[in-house]
């Protein structure tokens, strides 16, 4: 299993300088990928803009949206943004897409939320199927495509159009159960081989209270679950190691750990913990 790290694009107080510094350090290893989240109505950075910046200062790590909310963007524009980051990074984009969980993002984007599942299916078919006749350059060859979500339809979209599944986070057993469903869908749709399985988690070494506060705020829209997500924040090297082992045993291919405090010292501590 590979371990990647999230860019601090949704944590308060991230500057352009910190972001680039973070990306540079991550590229030095032992991380295999840099992940970003997507949200409009929040003090956060746009995922493709952030990955484009990271592309300029990295040469090795994969750049992954975990996930981007596809239907917020017109399909052609989404394809263009993804293709651009893919080209700027020398073919390192992993495009994770899902319908997202917040209606306010749809309102802010001026997009009708009804039918968003259908629209995501269209976007996936468009991007994967080359419906544009590849007129929307640059080339998307080698762009890895993931789909997230927990509904039966999310799993069938994943198996139909993508290379793998992007899980939304939780304890290893929650990941294992989703992974089983992903594999069942993959076989049901007659795809050869196995889906790539991506997981994610949160960490914080220096200031657990600040990290928890951020998670409660970021996930306030989930109501009762914000508290639980905050409680699952990994706040020690031991907790990170256990979590990594749990995900590895559950069959995860790539685990991306997201920071909850924007401080580059956090990245050094994580690198030590997983080394």
């Amino acid at each position, binding site marked *: 299993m590979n371990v990647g790290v999230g860019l601090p694009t949704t944590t308060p107080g991230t500057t352009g300088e910190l972001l680039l510094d973070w990306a540079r350090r991550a590229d030095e290893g032992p991380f295999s990928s840099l992940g970003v989240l997507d949200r409009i109505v929040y003090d956060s950075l746009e995922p493709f803009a952030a990955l484009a910046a990271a592309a300029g200062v990295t040469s090795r790590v994969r750049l992954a949206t975990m996930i981007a909310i596809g239907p917020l963007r017109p399909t052609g524009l989404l394809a263009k943004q993804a293709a651009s980051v893919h080209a700027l990074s020398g073919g390192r984009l992993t495009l994770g897409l899902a319908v997202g969980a917040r209606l306010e993002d749809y309102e802010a984007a001026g997009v009708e939320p009804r039918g968003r599942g259908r629209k995501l*299916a269209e976007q996936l078919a468009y991007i*994967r199927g*080359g419906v544009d006749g590849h007129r929307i350059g640059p080339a998307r060859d080698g762009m890895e495509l993931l789909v997230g979500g927990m509904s*039966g339809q999310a799993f069938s979209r994943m198996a139909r159009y993508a290379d793998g599944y992007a899980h939304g986070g939780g304890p290893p057993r929650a990941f294992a159960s989703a992974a089983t469903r992903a594999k069942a869908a993959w076989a049901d749709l007659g795809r*050869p081989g196995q889906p790539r399985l991506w997981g994610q988690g949160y960490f914080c070494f220096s200031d657990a209270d600040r990290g928890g506060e951020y998670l409660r705020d970021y996930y306030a829209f989930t109501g*009762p679950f914000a508290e639980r997500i905050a409680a699952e924040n990994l706040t020690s090297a031991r907790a990170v190691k256990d979590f990594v082992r749990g995900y590895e045993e559950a069959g995860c291919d790539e685990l991306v750990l997201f920071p909850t405090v924007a401080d580059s010292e956090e990245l050094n501590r994580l690198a030590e913990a997983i080394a």
Partner: protein
Amino acid sequence: MRVEIVGGGPAGLYLGILLRRADPSAEVRVTERNAPDATFGWGVVFSEETLGSLRDADPETHLEITDTFARWDRVDIRYRGRELRSRGHSFSAIARKRLLAILQRRCRAVGVELEFGVEVSELPDADLVVGADGANSLVRRLGEFGTKVEPEGSKYVWFGTDHVFDAFTFVFKETEHGVYNVHAYPYDEGMSTFIVECPLETWLGAGHEDMSEEENLAYCEQLFARDLRGRELFSNRSVWLDFPKVTNRVWHDGRVVLLGDAAHTAHFSIGSGTKLAMEDSIALANALARRGWDVEAALLDYELERGPAVERTQGAASESAGYFRRVGSYTHLEPIQFAFNLLTRSGRITHAGLGIRDPRFTRTLDSWFGGSPVSPPPAFSPFELHGVRFENRFGLVPSGLVAVSAEGRVTPETATIDEWSPRPGQVLLQLGHAGRRGATQPRSVGVDLPLSEGWPVVAPTRRPYGPFSPVPGEPDEAAIREQFVAAARRAGRLDVDVLELDMAHGYLLGSYLSPLVNQEDDRLRFPLSVLQAVREAWPGVLAVRLSVTDWHPRGNSVGDGVAIARAMAEGGADLIHVEAGQTVHDDRPVYRRGFLTALSDRVRNEARVPTLVGGHLTTIDDANTAVAAGRADLVLLDLPESDIERPLEASNKLLQAEVSG
């Protein structure tokens, strides 16, 4: 800290005890609508697992409860005049009245205030209000919980009897109106619970609707006279009921929280109601203690901790309720298989699991299944169909879709029958026409992605299959039928063991069957005509691959799928390969391990036709359980690709693992 608990059943009383134990300064009051000694129902069951958590939570009540327990480790199944016994199931039960008396006494000892005969009409003023007032909770109506209550399963009536059963006993009785079944278990030295259950049609047919309470009791007493050994049934306002399945989107609203049946019910046929309720009490008391009476945080913890466990139990309970509602479709099974199907109905016990609890039972089952005293596990037992012998139940090598014509290909890589040749092994040739799912890019890229320059596709509709799929043209039915026949003739000259017609997943023949695609009244017309024509051209085993549900609210239901399967069997199919969904692009599939097994069970036992099923079965235990329970005759396992290439080696490897495991 003041806590008002509404409802003096096991959950409410037990919570009161635990709260006072944890914090003697807390004021805790339980109010109950009825008198202290009024109770409905007779005995309640516990599993050993629950007993451990009761011991940890309050040793005093645990001791008192277990002292009066009736215990047993056997499940007896009376069916067709025989009694089958399965051991290794630890159960215990107690009179509900006795349990309440113990809890009430303990409440008083630890200083919980108890008030009886008090009806609650508005929310009491307290730091925490607990709705422990049962499936028809009043407290629940005073808050916002996103409640859903729907009837589940069959009609049932709850009696007591002075015949003391010496095990948990299932009785199945066939009558002219249908099947009745009984769940009976002892709960003290002189009494047993005796629940009678029957499907609605049976209940109506027998005229229970118009019977008085006494007439009903007399009817049941007479029907089960032999099982009662001449003893009586007792009524305690025992009337026929529908079981209400209660679910709540959230279990707390501000300072009000739901507990036990008020929050969630689980069909009585798995005997988990009281267990879940008392486990709720433990979780809530622990959360409050851990959070130092931060009520909001504790209620979150409680709900998040209990939610997944309750959901799993409710899922198993619904499977079980469904089994008893369809019980009439299983009465063709031989007693030992009937018993194994019953024991594995909720998916919580497998062949291997039962083998650990009761090796004698699985040995008997395996011998019966294999037809000789020394038999391999069921999946390794041979099977004969239409004159063809299958060495085991999982060794078929599926070809993948082989097209009857170039136009019928799914992708440019799809083999056509003219160029296809079988791999070694027992071969399942899957013959089909892609219909409107044709002319797509290879599956290594994705599924249903149209080729930029494909070929014309056909379907009984003008609507494309998915985004950017081509508009289908009209099928030339006579020509396509002739292609199927020609392909079947060619298969007759090749080394093919089973010929399968693909009528699943929205390929051409499957698209005819679904109301989501085909508007004509007789949707079976063309697929049946193909089946009959092929039947004449192919003398061997003929299978039909069928999506037995469209997984769509306006599509074919499982009931429709069973009817289609029956029609296919009458039209000459020897075997139904059970699949689901993909008829349309935006169906709502349900994926998990073994997601097709329950559907195969329904097709096999309702349409009474042999079935083949896959659906992400990944272990030989999955296969053993499915075939031994009569849910399928043959299975396709999801094994690593290397094993699929070498079925014989894979089979040996699995057998070795089975023997050593």
